[in-house]
């Protein structure tokens, strides 16, 4: 093996390690939804190439409301699905759409676009 091959393989393995670490190993800390005077746990979610924030911490047994704002025209993100709560919503560009549900049981639930390309997580404690 020549020196250039060694370099290519070392760099390649390094990149693979970076991908594994960056996409799969790092755990993002969630944002805790704010409790409003109406008794709802509310969180604004920006939809632009992904969900911001994409990890939302909720308290069990209190109604939750996520206000989605889609700020892109790509049709990939035009729908958001909270499969575990049987909720979905069409998100017109530039408008706020509220999705309300009741996180009755503790656990981790996913919310995603219809194709499952954009994903977020709800942590119910």
């Amino acid at each position, binding site marked *: 093996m020549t020196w250039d*091959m060694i370099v290519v393989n070392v760099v390649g393995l390094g990149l693979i390690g970076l991908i594994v670490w960056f996409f799969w190993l790092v755990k993002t800390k969630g944002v805790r939804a704010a409790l409003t005077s*109406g008794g709802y746990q509310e969180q604004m979610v920006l939809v632009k190439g992904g969900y911001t924030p994409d990890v939302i911490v909720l308290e069990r047994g209190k109604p939750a409301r996520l206000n989605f704002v889609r700020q892109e*025209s790509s049709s990939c993100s035009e729908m958001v699905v909270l*499969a575990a709560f049987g909720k979905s919503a*069409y998100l017109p560009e530039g408008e706020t*759409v509220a999705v309300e549900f009741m996180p009755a049981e503790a656990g981790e639930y996913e919310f995603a676009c219809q*194709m499952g390309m954009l994903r977020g997580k709800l942590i119910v404690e």
Partner: protein
Amino acid sequence: MNKHAMHMSPASANVLPGYKIHEARAPAGPEGLDREQQAREAEYRSLMRKWWFAAPVGVFTMIMSYPWLFPVLDDWFPRGSPQLWYIWAFMGVASAAVLLYSGNQFFTGAWQALEHRSANMHTLIALGTGVAWVYSTIILLFPQVLPSSEMLEVYYDVTVVVTALVVLGLAMELKAKGRTSDAIKKLIGLQPKTARVVRGGREIDIPVEQVVVGDLVVVRPGEKIPVDGEIAEGSSAVDESMVTGESLPVEKRAGDEVIGATINKTGSFKFTATKVGSDTALASIIRMVQDAQGSKVPIQRIVDVVSGYFTPAVAILAILGFMAWYTAGPEPRIVFALIVAVTTLIIACPCALGMATPMSLTTGVGLGALNGILIRDGTALQTAQKLQTVILDKTGTITHGRPVLTDVVMSPGVDENEMLRLAGGVEKSSEHPLAAAIVEGAAGRGLALPDAESFNAIPGHGIEARIGGRALLLGNLKLMHDRSIALGALEERAAELADDGKTPMYVAMDGKAAGIVAVADTVKDDSVQAIRSLKDMGLEVVMITGDNERTARAIGRRVGIERVLSEVLPQDKAHNVQKLQLEGKKVGMVGDGINDAPALAQADVGFAIGTGTDVAIAASDITLIKGSLHGVVLAMQISRATMRNVYQNLFGAFIYNTLGLPIALGVLYPFFGILLSPLLAAIAMAFSSVTVISNANRLKRWRPA
């Protein structure tokens, strides 16, 4: 806190300034539909502009990347010549422009995804085209990095052509995607815009949103009925096909329910509005369909797990491919390694995988809605096609659910109309559920029913009355025996009627047997045909009823059901469903949504036969708006067709990726010397997602078998 206040709170609490808040549950109106349409159109036009910019540059770069393949060009731009270098430099600038304009969404999309620690199709395309451009530019500027000048080849064509094809694919995908939701558009488009109401004694036209419950609404022939209500005066035939799937117009009289968005055919009438705005049957249907289309088919969970790892895994494969080809590949190693890595990045199509089930679900659920079948969610759809046994509730499902006069038998010398006239007259005073059937039957023959002069109901036996100057007895065998009436051949005839599932009642006039009137809950016209179709589909059909065994068996025989569960109390129906499930079967239960709710819930799939405007109340998995058993057959066929479509799409998407990736990585090269060109990979990738959507759209051509 009142409803309004609750809806107001988010606007003040946690909304970006300048944004209007929408409640996700409200169905989109025609206005929302237009905006969605416009947004799609704008996106489509933008993608097509990008395609038209990239396409000519693509053709130019494709030719000029290999001028030695064209005799004239080879003379003008020989390999290694300064003029070719300048042409390539120009191509580098042009392809950068294509990347920046046509491929802009890939790079911004990839960056945004990266910010969310995720990767998607954009990431793969951006990496593939970006790597090709950067490599080409480096060797163009610093050719000395290559071992030989013969190896100097640029890959700007890959950059531009891949961008162009993927953009074209996205545009086609957008068009096809718009078509999958045609059904919901059709439903939303049904919503009427104006209504003619009586206010202050005058008829005025107002927007439909302003109609309130209790308004008296005027409908003329050929007009659309604006909201749900009950006819106050007038009568007409109404075409309800758009909501119930029933093709024949339905006769409506005062007191009957009318459904908004259906079309009045012949007469004029006035009706009282009972449901308006988002409470109407149509609004409920639209909401249910939207919810179902946004739900997930259970099999999607597997796909979700796969696609969660998919894109980074493809990037890893591309790196491994580069390493392998650089280390052990043929010369020029760097070129082969680069082509393999770029092709691998480009051929992988996470989109086809992600779209496989939602697209079919959207089409399938919409198809159901257009046929009067409301499917609650993807789970109901997937389970329905696995059913092995279908339990049909007798009353109201197989039969009409209300008794009618079926037979009149006379003793010799008795006039049929006279007997029926008197029997009908007597029953007018009775509150017995079967009495109405005789009254209606007699009235239906145009007989004028006299009033009884005296009337005595004998519980458990029948009625004794004086009517038209005659003594009349109407009741069962016990009553006749008590009064020592000789029945003769009538007794045998009555037994036959009972065997047939009917309820016979003897009539005696002036102390002599006059005949029999029999009533029965009649079987709906298409029940027999529907039950046969269900059996033809390989399903075991079971009837459940509270009737005694003899009556139940008789009806079972008439409709072709062998397995009959009789004398089942309403509260025990769910338990019976469970017993069948314990036999290891997937059980569907068909009944009306209100009385049978526990049994419907217990079943793997509960089918509620609804009628009219109560569609959304039923707590069932599948609601059949039209009160016909044939809907169960259609629902089963639609669920099977949709799931077949889902499996085809998933199979296609999985096979495409599992075959495409190894080929891109060059597994065929050692055996056949075949290495996939990145351009072919781009074509395959762009069309794989279009194929998935087109296959889902094919479902729309489904017609009942």
